[in-house]
């Protein structure tokens, strides 16, 4: 979650401004092209499917709301999200506190340890938790905690480090306030906005958690999204599924709108590295945080990989498995090409949107590109089913859906780079006689390339782990991705199949981690 580009768009930058002087006609042409790419993509691949859901739901709203079962599902969806967010706080706050206040050997490792699960495909985490804890409400909450503890650590930790570096707590101590009073009157209120922001973000992630609940609910626990899937795919009652999808969109929208301010004010982007070294009792905090991260957060993942993955299970990835339409390896290959296509499409559309946002169309572009954020992937996948039912044999719907889901991330990577672009460089090039085309190729492209590649990488990471939309679009072997294979393997009995799921999960996780590491490097290149 990055808040920022939206606010920064107020700076009156035009495409021409960072591109250097250009004839007005050509500038219009560029804007028109960008508009058709960005708005066309979002209109066809986000709004149209959503409209299809709304139209379909029309008739059945009354009966769906009349059912007690509907309300118990809504109730469970909200309740599990709240409990999960609290669990993430419970585990995340001590780690955030330690990372914010002390500098020690292994600090980077601790930070990475809690961040890794956040980027892992949700099904990998769900599979690991199921192997250790089985199914039920507690495993669902634990999986959500593991996935989202990074949000708490990052968001609260950043604010906490700022508060710590400001020295207000020490000043309060000098003035004679005890530790409890300092916490209650100084540090607590100062980090509270960040805690609120982190809670809201985790809440939103847990409200839209699909694969985790499907794997860990054991068929008994259902959220609105798993019910959309059940009604649409299992029961074939598209009207009911549509009505539930609308309920889900409304719920997410309400939470997002109500909490918009708290997210905007609570997220600190600049992180300060603490200078204090842990002394005496402080070491207990460091060791405690390490244990929390190592055992509670990473424990299930390490256990699953360690107990199941070996030469045998890795070797068996190339073999056919009953009830899975392709070999796990083939599913991995499918995931890779789909991620590549989704990344490139999202990158292309993302650039067009950024270009468009620097024109008079700015607000429209921003709303369009960030729209997929408000539409849960499950609803999007279901909308594709309704809107493009006749293309369902087409495997291309899957990368396109992934591109739509990943679009906001491309934006978040590219927009700041464009905002920070030094237009004097193109002006200088123009003064030196470079043509507009040459300026674009020799000056603009190389400077923005790292951000664009980072955006594409992030979209690819989303695609690699995407399950909610994919689950609606896969038919038979066509477009059968690695997360689908993990899901199918986990739903069959037998340790061997579960070991295979773990092995595939590990391969997928390694790929994802490599891409994230690459993005991280590019990110540092851009900011330095």
């Amino acid at each position: 979650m990055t808040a920022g580009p939206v606010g920064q768009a107020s700076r009156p930058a035009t495409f021409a401004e960072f591109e250097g002087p250009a004839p007005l006609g050509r500038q219009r042409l560029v804007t028109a092209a960008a508009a058709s790419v960005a708005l066309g993509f979002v209109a066809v691949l986000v709004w149209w499917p959503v409209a299809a859901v709304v139209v379909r739901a029309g008739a059945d709203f009354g009966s769906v709301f009349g059912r007690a079962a509907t309300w118990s599902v809504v109730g469970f969806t909200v309740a599990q999200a709240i409990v999960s967010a609290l669990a993430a706080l419970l585990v995340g706050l001590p780690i955030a506190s330690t990372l914010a206040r002390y500098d020690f050997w292994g600090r980077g490792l601790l930070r990475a340890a809690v961040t890794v699960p956040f980027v892992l495909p949700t099904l990998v985490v769900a599979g690991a938790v199921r192997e250790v804890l089985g199914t039920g409400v507690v495993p669902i909450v634990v999986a959500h905690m593991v996935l989202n503890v990074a949000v708490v650590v990052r968001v609260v930790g950043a604010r906490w480090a700022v508060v710590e570096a400001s020295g207000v707590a020490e000043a309060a101590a000098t003035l004679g306030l005890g530790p409890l009073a300092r916490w209650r009157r100084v540090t607590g209120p100062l980090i509270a906005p960040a805690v609120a922001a982190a809670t809201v973000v985790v809440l939103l992630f847990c409200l839209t958690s699909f694969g985790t609940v499907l794997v860990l609910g054991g068929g008994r626990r259902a959220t609105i999204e798993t019910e959309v899937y059940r009604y649409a795919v299992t029961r074939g009652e598209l009207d009911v599924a549509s009505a539930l999808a609308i309920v889900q969109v409304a719920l997410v929208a309400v939470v997002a709108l109500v909490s918009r301010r708290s997210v905007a004010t609570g997220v600190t982007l600049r992180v300060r590295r603490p200078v204090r070294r842990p002394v005496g009792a402080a070491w207990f905090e460091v060791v405690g945080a390490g244990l929390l991260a190592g055992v509670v957060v990473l424990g299930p993942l390490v256990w699953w990989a360690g107990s199941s993955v070996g030469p045998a299970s890795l070797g068996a990835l190339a073999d056919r498995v009953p009830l899975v339409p392709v070999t796990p390896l083939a599913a991995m290959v499918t995931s890779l090409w789909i991620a590549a296509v989704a990344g490139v499409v999202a990158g292309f559309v993302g650039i067009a949107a950024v270009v468009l946002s620097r024109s008079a169309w700015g607000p429209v572009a921003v709303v369009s590109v960030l729209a997929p954020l408000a539409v849960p992937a499950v609803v999007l996948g279901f909308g594709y089913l309704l809107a493009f039912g006749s293309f369902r044999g087409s495997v291309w719907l899957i990368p396109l859906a992934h591109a739509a889901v990943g679009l906001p991330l491309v934006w978040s990577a590219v927009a700041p780079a464009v905002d920070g672009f030094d237009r004097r460089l193109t002006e200088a090039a123009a003064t030196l006689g470079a043509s507009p085309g040459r300026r674009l190729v020799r000056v603009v492209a190389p400077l923005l390339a790292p951000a664009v590649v980072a955006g594409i990488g992030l979209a690819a990471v989303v695609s690699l782990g995407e399950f909610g939309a994919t689950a609606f679009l896969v038919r038979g072997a066509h477009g059968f991705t690695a997360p689908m294979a993990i899901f199918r393997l986990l739903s069959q009995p037998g340790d061997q199949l579960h070991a295979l799921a773990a092995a595939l999960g590990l391969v997928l996780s390694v790929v994802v981690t490599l891409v994230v590491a690459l993005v991280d490097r590019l990110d540092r290149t851009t900011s330095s």
Partner: protein
Amino acid sequence: MLCRVTAMALAVALLASGCTDEAESPETLTLLTHDSFAVGDGAFDAFTAETGIEVEVVSGGDAGELVAAAVLVAGDPQADVMFGVDNTFLQRALDGDVFAPHSVPADVSLAEVATAAADTDVVVPIDYGYVCVNYWTDALAGPAPSSLDDLVGMADQFVTENPETSSPGFAFLLATIATYGDDWEQYWGELADGGLEVTAGWNDAYYGSFTAGGGDRPLVTSYATSPVAEVVFADPPVDAPPTGVLTEGCFLQVEYAGVLAGTDYPEAAGQLVDYLLTPDFQSEIPLNMFVYPANADVELPAVFVDHAVEIADPMVLTPAEIEQGRADWTQRWTEIVLR
């Protein structure tokens, strides 16, 4: 100008000839079926040898997903022939105009049971079986059940499948509805209160929670022919199956095949459906899918005859009754048993 007209006429002629050429004899026919489809490697060789047409088998998920997907693309199918829609889903497929009518060839005599579940001349029955509760004799606490009533007291030893996601699970629900009428809800309430376990599919019930897969439940919803598989796959070999079948409350399940409406090759597709009824293909069915072949003239393997349990009086509901009740029954079942 003249030249252009000639060229266009030529192109049209070429296209037209290309089309008719294709429509008469495809190189490959696609057979869409469910995940549980299993036959020997050369099961279609005789068909290919006779017609020159290869058969590509494509899996479209479980039986329910298969039908749901077929209804969505009815008239513009992804395949030419579909096999695996059973009597519990047949009405949905018929209502959705998934199939172009095709009837059983005159020279094929069907087993009487194969025609008992549905009266249709749109699709043809290919195989049939009975969904029954199985028990692992040695692992039962107490005597084997002899009626559906007996299961209530043994619910904590019983694992069944979710009728929404599993066809044997749904067939068993139908058996209880056919047996108890309106009291079926109460029956399931008692099973749920007694500690019934529910899985999503047959595989995780039989090979996960049932004794056969190392699980701790000696009662499972499976088939009257499952004991045959227990003998065939036994390692080391056994003379008698370790499992038994509760012969009361069994539900007749018939699987059908048909020509998908809108196929480019209706004639060849019809030939393929007919082939599925020939002894060449039918003899593959018993020991690959562990159900009975629909063709009455096909001889059953000895192991099948010895260990399959005959069901004299299975429960039957018409496809129309099933389709009419399905949504409410499964919804109520979910509320009673799972939530």
